[in-house]
């Protein structure tokens, strides 16, 4: 009997060691990919809009600010808040002076997070902020599974990001240009403003601003079809962002909505290679102006 128990324990030891090793290797790559391993002064928090739309290396070079890009596709406002809190709680990120928070026109209209966006953050389950965030969306059984067997925290996507972290490749490069039909297609869903999101954004922005961090709301170039279709909602959103920027000198609003041209997009909403260069250049100029100020 002792031999059998010894064998089982031996296997479990090998399993957990292998699992831990895999986790560490992948985690290190992810940390590099999201810029968590450097003493970032400028932090970009966004969904896919700035993931494809900003070149963090070029921005770093142009502003002389060590830049981290914590961007994940499909992330809604609550998730972006969790991302920001997670990054700021990370041990090596005490020196963040500028937070660039992607504030697209849909951010304040979402009622809840989309079905699977939280799965990207399982690798960070050990961080208390992320554990609290993830526990809202997953069953206790799954949480136990992810806690015990660390490999279950990863997906093929996180594997890819980790690999890119090792290769120092944090930007996306898509050369395609959106077709005219796609660009002009009318949106087919409705939106309403979410008061809770607005309240939360206001509190969060003020909290960082009062702590001495420059909280910069950035609206990326936006397809005019969206603006036309959601004109009433958009007006309220832009008004809210401007009012928010007036509340504290450390809260800034940068609006690049009007820069949108079809040639700069690879689909209806995301910037291509040319769009990325254009936005990065404009943003760098504006940031440098802010730095001087």
């Amino acid at each position, binding site marked *: 009997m002792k031999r059998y128990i010894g*064998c089982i324990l031996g296997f479990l030891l*090998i*399993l957990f060691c292998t699992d831990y090793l*895999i986790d560490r290797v992948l985690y290190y790559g992810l940390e590099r990919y999201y810029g968590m391993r450097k003493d970032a002064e400028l932090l970009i928090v966004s969904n896919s809009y700035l993931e494809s739309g900003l070149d963090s290396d070029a921005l770093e070079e142009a502003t002389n600010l060590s830049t981290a890009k914590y961007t994940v596709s499909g992330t809604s406002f609550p998730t972006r808040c969790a991302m920001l809190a997670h990054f700021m709680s990370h041990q090596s990120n005490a020196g963040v002076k500028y937070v660039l928070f992607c504030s697209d026109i849909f951010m304040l209209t979402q009622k809840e997070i989309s079905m699977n966006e939280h799965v990207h953050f399982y690798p960070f389950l050990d961080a208390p902020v992320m554990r609290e965030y993830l526990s809202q969306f997953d069953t206790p059984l799954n949480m136990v599974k992810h806690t015990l067997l660390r490999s279950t925290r990863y997906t*093929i*996507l996180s*594997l890819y990001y980790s690999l890119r972290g090792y290769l120092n490749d944090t930007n996306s490069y898509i050369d395609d240009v959106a077709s005219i039909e796609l660009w002009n297609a009318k949106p087919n869903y409705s939106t309403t403003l979410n008061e809770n999101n607005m309240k939360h954004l206001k509190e969060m922005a003020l909290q960082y601003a009062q702590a001495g961090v420059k909280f910069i709301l950035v609206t990326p170039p936006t397809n005019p079809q969206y603006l036309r279709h959601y004109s009433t909602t958009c007006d309220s959103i832009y008004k809210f962002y401007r009012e928010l920027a007036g509340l504290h000198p450390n809260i800034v609003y940068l609006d690049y909505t009007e820069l949108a041209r079809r040639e700069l997009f690879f689909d209806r909403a995301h910037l291509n290679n040319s769009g990325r260069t254009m936005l990065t250049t404009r943003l760098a100029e504006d940031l440098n102006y802010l730095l001087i100020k």
Partner: protein
Amino acid sequence: MLFTSFEFLVFYLVLYALVYLMNRYDKVFIRNFLLLVGSYFFYGNLHEWYPLLLLYVTVVGYVAGKVLERFSSHRKAVAGVSIGVSLCPLFFFKYAPLLNESIWLPVGLSFFTLQSLTYIWDCYRRKIEKSFGLLDVALFVAFFPTLLSGPIERARNLIPQLQRGFTYKWCNIVSGVQIFIWGAFKKLVIADNLGQIVDVTYTDLETAGGLNLALAALLYAIQIYADFSGYASMAVGIGRSFGIQLTDNFNFPYFAGTIKEFWKRWHISLTSWFTEYVYISMGGNRCSKWRWMINIYTVFLLSGIWHGATWAFVIWGAMHGMMYLLERAVSDKLTHTILYRVVMLMGVVTAWIFFRIPHSGDAWYVVKCIFAGPWLPFTAMGQLPFSFVGTICLAILFLILELMLYHKCYPKGIVWHWFGFALLICLIAIFAIPDNKFVYFNF
């Protein structure tokens, strides 16, 4: 309840503990009764009416066995009627969906029906001297590891094992767990990930060019092997953990040198079933050359029709029959060359296209595109590029692992062994796609 679900793990552990206890105290009857209840629960979990089919097939088999044992005259008629009655639900559910789409084929019906027929047939041929009791027959038909997708066991192999006390040897448990993990890896990591690419490609045939369709055909060949052999490995692993030796359903079929060898290595339990109960019953090879050719062709056509009532399956069976017969015309020296292997594998992969695509017209279109174009630019087949590349890497890894296993060329020593399985578990954790059905549940 799939083998890969958490519910199954709980079910298995509870049943295993109960069976172990009963076995330890030599309560074979109670142990088998528990296994039977567990098996019916396992099947009923898929649909509450499914166990009635099990019951029907069991009762027909049991009564036929008793009648065949008791009477020495009209045995052929009794066996024929019993087989016919046993096959009724299978024929109904297999072919009624053609007339009424609201009817569907219950999972596993084909498998446990064929399995129960082995009992009737063996009683008729007196390969089983004395018919078995109702509990034995019922457990033989319903034994949960083989219930949904085989292996199709012979009564003379499985029932005697079920009648004995199980010998719980440590090596059996360990090898059972290892085989199960390997099976889960094949299914969850390889088959399901490849399936995503194949499904997307075959959903939109018009936009996929010849290159993509060729790759999809190749990937489907790997997918169906990983899927079906994955299930078989899990079934064998579960059986082994109880101390029961189930038939190995696959033996590296893609490393076969000839079509004949391929069929000795692919779905072994079904091939041997057709060989024993159809081919040999028709006279096997102890007849004229023409008759033998007809026998071979009939077996392959029946095998195709068994999979489904569509022309595509008939063509699939016919293609394999043709390849089998053509091979006999080729000299032995030629059949063992690399060129022949490549041609043979191309034939097998092409036949899989008809197996995968339900409409034979679409399948012909795919074959035409692959061999005659248009060869549109290669795309990531509905996947993000990294996901596509990652999946291809997994397929290559799988082929390398298969090659290593085939040549028994892997690091020896217990630590390396366990490390390998720990790595497989981690890969399953990362790449598994939950809740995907097994391909062979459709048959």
